[in-house]
């Protein structure tokens, strides 16, 4: 699924939460989340991705994040979440 937003921060996180919930109910079987249009992320957004990963894990699906900009990778690195969110995907 492509997340068509520029920013995944505290301002958008509730809305994105709903979008992701709808995705889980629809067809998340591929487990690919395209973050190609996301230009900005904060800890709220990263935490949401971690929760998504947990949900997919429960369904036996591995989360793959695609379209990661260097900014997003830097942010994951800064939060220490790269090994959880990225290393097994890319």
């Amino acid at each position, binding site marked *: 699924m492509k997340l068509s937003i520029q920013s995944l921060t505290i301002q958008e996180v509730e809305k994105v939460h709903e979008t992701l919930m709808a995705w889980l109910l629809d067809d998340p079987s591929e487990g690919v989340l395209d973050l190609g249009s996301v230009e900005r992320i904060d800890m709220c957004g990263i935490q949401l991705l971690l929760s998504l990963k*947990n949900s997919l894990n429960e369904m036996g699906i591995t989360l793959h994040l695609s379209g990661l900009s260097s900014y997003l990778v830097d942010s994951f690195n800064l939060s*220490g979440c790269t090994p959880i969110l990225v290393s097994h995907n890319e």
Partner: protein
Amino acid sequence: MSEELEYFHEDAKDQLGFMEQALMDIVEHGVNDEAIGAIFRAMHTIKGTAGMFDFNAIVAFTHIAENLLDSVRQKKVSLTEALIELLLHTKDHVEELIHAAIADIPLSQNILERDENLRRSLLDALNTTSDSASDISIEHHPSEEFSEEETVWHISLRLKEDFFKTGMDILSVFDFFGSMGEIITILPITDTIPTLDSFDPLHPYIGFEIFFLSSASIADIKEIFEFVEEDIELIIFSSDDTVQLKNLIILRPEVAGALEEASLYRSALAHDDDTGDGSDIPLTAINEPSSQSIPSNTTQIIAIPNIKGEESEKTILPKSSFLRVDFQKIDVLINQVSEMVIANAKIALISEKYDDTDLEETTASLSEMLDNLRDAVMNIRMVQVEESFAKLRRNVSDVAKKLGKSIDFSIAGGETELDKSVVEKLSDPLIHMLRNSIDHGIENKETRLASGKSEQGSVVLRAYPDSGSIIIEIEDDGRGLNTQLIRNKAIEKGLISAQDVLSDEMTNMLIFHPGFTTAETISDISGRGVGMDVVKQNIDALKGRINIVNRIGEGCKFVITLPLTLAIIDGFLVQAGSTKYIFPQDMIQEVVEFSQHSCVEIGGSLLLNLRGELLPLLDIKHYFKDTESVSFPRQNIVIVRYGSYQAGVIVDELFGEQQTVVKPLGALFRKVPGISGGSILGSGEIALIFDIPALISYVIQNDKR
């Protein structure tokens, strides 16, 4: 403005103030490491905190200044007079950048040009003196900035319930770590993050274990979290401290598994060869009791329970003892206390009607508690004048430099406390008076030497408490006011006529008249005749008075007398005729019974013979033209003192001391001379509060005439 942004603003103002003071210290007392450290820290802190708010223009500029200051700190660059001047301009510029960033307004062309020029000058200063410091890219170079002994700190961080709602992103805080050292690893603790169906997007589930290599102290690291300290739980200790690690794991068991999985603890300890038996501790085994106490180099914002778990042992938190509070919140508190004072006066009045000892004792006890509460609340508003005074050193230095005069400027009594609102409004008048002293008062070098004075002029700014007031003096050793010249100018401008007979003191006071100036040339410093009248207006607005003590050829002293506070005072209630009045208690010297024998009338003025000393006497009913006939068994004289002056005020009945909430008078009564405000009594009656300086001034001038 968000609370965090407001905090940033206040903190940045403080930092810039420290920077300016440190620079002025160096100007006055020579280079010292402490001052250089303070200047560096100011730029360093502003850069870091500005980064948290994405104020990139500030970050980029302060980074350059910080690099230069780091070189100064490392003695690679000498702190010359020109560099101090440049750093003062840098401080001013950062102030403007912050102002623009907070107001969210684009930088003007002027500011941008200045930004460019200052950057170039800062870079030049850096490049001309040090080859190694020429790299001034935005990348941080922690190893260059911190060359002292480094420690691997273990920082265990948890975010509280409302953390995200503060609007702060913890990633910005982590980013700032880079300016103080090197983050070896950040290990997120994600155990409690639920699946999406039970996920609350605004709840912080995540925690962090951070290993940070730095020469910074625990206090320095804590400062990074200063903006969010209320919304986090933080434990910091040296990573080679296995006792602390055990304590942490008992408190936060999830840490053990996470650290072991990531092999982080061993990695962190590897930075220290002297780890003893701690280097290979199996983390699953260290969750065992220990009787060792928490060492002093540990900080924690939460309490760690003692190891035996018998009872919770709270460690004293090494937090700052200061709390920033919005001034308006204190005003709300003061208003509430004011209302309580009025209500209490009413209760006291009611209790007098009943012959009930319990009621009277309870009322007395309540009054005492309220007295203490009032003092405590009013004390919150009191600030030392030192900080405000210290900022004036820069003004004095600038003016002296501009005029080519050498000035020894000293400050005395900086510890004197004054209501914060008064201090803030005092700044402009003081700046103007100091400028005048240097411009008009202090002579040029040649004149001073010719008159036997030292080459360097002296200007002293001092503060001290006196009779419930605060006195602020500006004294110089210059030429003094030329009273004859002032008189001639006043006649020329039609302020007085040639026939008017004025004392020297009254003549000198004419300089406060709007449009008055004796300066032959108009400079951008003074001499426009605009200013001294505004100075007086400002002092008047603070319910203060200004006097001049002049010594022709020797110097001049301006004496400002200000009330200690403007909100609640200790008053002394009296009645004269049909009206109740309140004397500010601090200004009362004594009360004597009125007797015709002790009073004399000389030249139309009434005088009191007080134990052989003649004091001017004011019949208040006569002064306010109160013709209503009310009879009293006796009359009294209240002796009041203001500065070095004394006077007696004839009143009728004395009611005694009482807390007085000062209420402003309506527009109609605001300019009644001799009255500074009103107060509501417990009975609901209004009492007028005497403006003692104005009354004394009236009787003295009456006598002189």
